[in-house]
Structures are given as structure tokens and as C-alpha cells.
């Protein structure tokens, strides 16, 4: 008989550190990253699953992005009196980047709620589910990049030389050059931010189910507040308000953190003027965001399976 008696149990080794410890939180994140085959597979599965039984499958991601970009590009270039050759690429890239970011925010809130079954039935680091969400969005981003490549091919000659998005009043943009390579670190930085967003908002949303609808309505508002279908040229144009130089209006964009995220990736992709302060802001937010995610992970990691 191998059952230990009560007397032996009393002499058991001291209990392990409590579930609220930095080392357990770190362990979860490190172990989560290590299981990349798992979240990689789950992320792919999500994409395949969404378009199972449809004829063109994940190509729908690409196609719907193309339709939106062309429609909005045509409409807004007319509204703002901009050249379609440069405004369409601007909107397309802005929209692709926005899709990834809003995806992180919206699907991030659903990271743990949506994986309730798995969380309650299979022991795995929580980080795996956050990475699953970010990886799925990365794959969707990759599908959308096809639209970018097509648009780039069509308007190549307009984008590679200096151009203005808004005629006359707009800033002179340098055009696409070697700086396009900056898009790679920019996207990596965006994906890293997706990680903390999914962990932080995912855990808060699991506890407070009002958070997802709050984020939902905020995201659609922020979309209109962010220069995606309009340009910052419009904000700085002196003519609008009549009096004053109008330079304060740029704060509408500058105070919006998502503007900086859009800008670090969009600028190299369409060859507009790069401003280093965008990178600084994003870098700072990355550090702050991960610090918050780490604190929440330490305090509430063990509670998530109780809350879902």
C-alpha cells in the first residue's frame, strides 16, 4: 500500500512560494513564449477555422481589406481634394496598421474569456493564450500586406519620389527609400505591445465583464480621432479656423497614443517624413505597458481560472 500516513504528511517539505510571486509570473511568461509550437498552431487554427468551408478561405481577409481601402480611398481623396495616387496608399496602410492594433485591443479583451474551455481543462501558462491572440492578428496582418504590395506596385512611381498627400498645403514627403526597412522593427514593436495589451486587458476583462463593451465603443471613437482617413496636414493648415496659426490642433493627434503607433509603421511603408519622437513615445509605452501587465500577472494570474 503506497498511501502515506498522516504522520508522514506532517513532515512534508515546506510549501512552495505563494501563487502571488514575481517568479511565478516570470515563469508563466517565459514558459508561454517557449511553447511557441502550441500558440503558433492555435493561431493558425483560428485563421483556418474562421474560413473553413468558405471557397476562397483566408483570402477573404485580404479581399475585404482591399475593398475597404479602395472604397475609403476613393471617397476621402475626393472629400479632401487629395491625389488618389498618394492618398489611396496612405489610407490602405493606415487601415492595415489600425486593423492590427484595434484587433489587439478588441480580441485582447477576449483572450481568456474565449479560451475558457482550455483554461479549465488543460494546465498551460496563461501567456500562451495571449500569444495565440497576437499571433493570429499577425497572420491577419500578413494577409493584409498583400493589399499593400499590390497598391505599392500600382502607385510605385508616385510614391518613390517626393510628394505631397494634400496638394499645396501639405508637407513635402521624401518618398519611399531605404527607410522602408524600419517597418520591420516597427512591426515587431507593435507586436510586443500587443502582448501586454492582451495580457492586461484580457485579465481585467475576465474579472469585469463590462470592460469589453467599454473598449469596444472607445476603439470605434478613437478610429475617427486618429489620422487614418485624414492627415495631420489638415490639422496644421492655417486656413481652417480663420484666426491663429492653428498649430495647437496638432495636439489632437499628438496626445493620442495610437497615433504614434500608427506613425512608426506607416511612415516607412509609404515614405512619409519620419519623426523620432514617435519611436520614443511607443518605446516608453511599451515599457510602462509591460510593467503593468507584469504586475497584473503577478497578482491575478492564479485567479484567472477561477474567473473565466
Amino acid at each position, binding site marked *: 500500500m503506497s*498511501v502515506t500516513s498522516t504522520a508522514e504528511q506532517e513532515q512534508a517539505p515546506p510549501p512552495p512560494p505563494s501563487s502571488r510571486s514575481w517568479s511565478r509570473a516570470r515563469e508563466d511568461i517565459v514558459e508561454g513564449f517557449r511553447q511557441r509550437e502550441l500558440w503558433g*498552431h492555435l493561431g493558425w487554427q483560428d485563421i483556418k477555422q474562421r474560413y473553413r468551408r468558405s471557397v476562397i478561405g483566408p483570402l477573404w481577409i485580404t479581399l475585404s481589406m482591399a475593398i475597404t481601402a479602395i472604397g475609403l480611398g476613393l471617397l476621402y481623396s475626393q472629400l479632401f481634394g487629395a491625389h488618389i495616387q498618394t492618398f489611396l496608399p496612405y489610407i490602405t496602410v493606415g487601415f492595415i496598421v489600425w486593423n492590427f492594433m484595434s484587433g489587439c485591443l478588441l480580441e485582447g479583451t477576449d483572450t481568456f474569456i474565449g479560451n475558457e474551455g482550455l483554461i479549465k481543462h488543460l494546465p498551460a501558462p496563461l501567456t500562451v493564450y495571449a500569444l495565440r491572440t497576437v499571433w493570429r492578428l499577425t497572420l491577419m496582418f500578413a494577409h493584409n500586406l498583400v493589399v499593400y504590395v499590390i497598391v505599392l506596385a500600382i502607385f510605385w512611381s508616385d510614391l518613390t519620389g517626393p510628394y505631397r498627400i494634400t496638394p499645396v498645403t501639405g508637407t513635402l514627403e521624401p518618398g519611399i527609400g531605404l527607410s522602408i526597412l524600419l517597418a520591420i522593427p516597427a512591426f515587431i514593436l507593435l507586436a510586443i505591445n500587443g502582448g501586454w495589451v492582451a495580457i492586461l486587458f484580457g485579465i481585467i476583462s475576465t474579472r469585469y465583464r463590462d470592460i469589453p463593451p467599454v473598449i469596444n465603443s472607445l476603439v470605434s471613437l478613437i478610429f475617427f480621432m486618429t489620422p487614418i482617413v485624414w492627415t495631420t496636414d489638415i490639422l496644421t493648415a492655417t486656413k481652417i479656423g480663420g484666426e491663429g496659426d492653428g498649430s495647437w490642433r496638432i495636439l489632437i493627434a499628438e496626445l493620442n497614443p495610437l497615433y504614434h503607433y500608427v506613425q512608426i509603421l506607416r511612415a516607412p511603408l509609404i515614405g512619409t517624413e519620419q519623426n523620432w519622437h514617435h519611436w520614443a513615445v511607443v518605446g516608453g509605452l511599451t515599457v510602462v505597458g509591460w510593467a503593468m501587465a507584469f504586475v497584473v500577472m503577478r497578482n491575478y494570474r492564479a485567479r484567472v481560472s477561477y474567473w473565466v
Partner: protein
Amino acid sequence: MVSINVWNASVDFPIFDAKSRSLKKLVLGKVGGKIGTEQKVPIIEALHDITLSLKEGDRVGLVGHNGAGKSTLLRLLAGIYEPTRGSARTLGKVAPVFDLGVGMDPEISGLENIMIRGLFLGMTRKQMEKKVDDIAEFTELGDYLQMPLRTYSTGMRVRLALGVVTSIDPEILLLDEGIGAVDAAFLAKARTRLVDLVNRSGMLVFASHQDDLLFELCDSAIWMDEGHIKMHGSLREVITQYKGRDPFASMDRETLERLGIEPALTTNPSEV
């Protein structure tokens, strides 16, 4: 070294009703002052003061009424729930088979479910690709593995889940009730594999209401009652106490023979 140690662990579930789960209550509660006891989230004490020590080679059956805490205890042992008070430590590669409907995606094929389960249990994709043929053969599902899981019967799901966990050499196997859904022939096959597994430096914890299954797979037992461990001892003693009668007395001859117990010996309580 495979072991499970639990010290004075309790598991309390907060039950958020629609109101207390929202921010509204939290905000209004602070502004409007006390609303009496309503401010507290009601709690269900699923497990209370559990102390347990299991080691290599243990094959433990979990018995108890519905809602006694068997499934929660299994999840505590798996590390899914960390105790709200006390502590628990599980050393070894854990493979749980819990609720069979959940944790598997009904829309994707059996093969893909095998892959996902395997990856969750710490295998790599390559390792799982090698195991697939073995699992297909063991589960006897054949071409059915290409079909989406929603077309499977309960028994077929059990076969799939058991096929995966037994093929990956886990050290700690946690089975919830439900595996009784398979037919006798498959059960005999599964039993050999499970016993083999436990003998190869493993541990098994199995919750069930079926005596014959418990006797096939376990040698000791824990009786759970209202979140406590009411009794922990040899399987036969625990079942006798729990049911109020000797389990062998009601088993038919065939089952006893399969278990390797001489019917004549059943009158002798010292022999299990």
C-alpha cells in the same frame, strides 16, 4: 521524481452574479456607502483544508457524491486551480482527461484535436506526428480521424482522449468520470495501457462512480465529502465504508475473474 503534495489547501469559487461582476456595483458601492452584505461576493467552498501526499506508483480512485469536490480536486492536482489558501505542489508531467465535451474543438478533425492536445501536454509537433499512427491504431477510429469532432459519439471522444494521453508517456494521469462511456473491449485494452503507464514510474488519480472501473485501475481510494477528504485508504475499505457494503459481494463472477480475484476469496476482507 513524481509526487503530489497538498498542504491545507482550500479552493473557494467567487460567484459573481450579473450585478456584482460589473464595475457599476464597485463604483456605486463606494459612492453610496454600505449596501450591507451584498457588497461581498458570495463564495462556494469547493475544497476545504485538503492535505494529501501522493507518490510514484500510486493509483488512487476518487469517490464521493455529485458535487463533493472530486473534479475540483483533480483540477487542483493538475495545477489548473491554485489553492486560495494553503499550497499545492505537483512534480511531474501531468496529463488530464476531464470533461470530454470541453477542451476539444468540435469543428476541427480528430487528427487536429490529437495534435492540439499533444502540444498542450508538452509534446512537439514532430513527436506528435510520429504518434498519430499509434493513436489511430489504438483508438480504432481509422478514417474517422479525418472527420470533424462534432460527428463523434461520446465513446469515440473518450477513445481519442485516452489514446492521446496514454501515447505520450505522462507521469501523472488524472482521469475524471466519463471514461466509462467506452465499450468493454476497448476498456480492457485501455486498462492494460493505463496499468503499464502507472508501472513505468507514473501516478494515476481517477474519479468514478463505477466500482468495477475503480477496481480495474486503482488500488487505493479517497472518499470526498462536501469538499473534505473523509477517508483515505485501500480501495476496498473506502468503497465498503462509502457504499456501506463490500463491493465484491455485488460483482458478478465474470468481473471478479477479470480483476484476478478468486470469487472464493471475496469473503476474506484482508485480501484485496
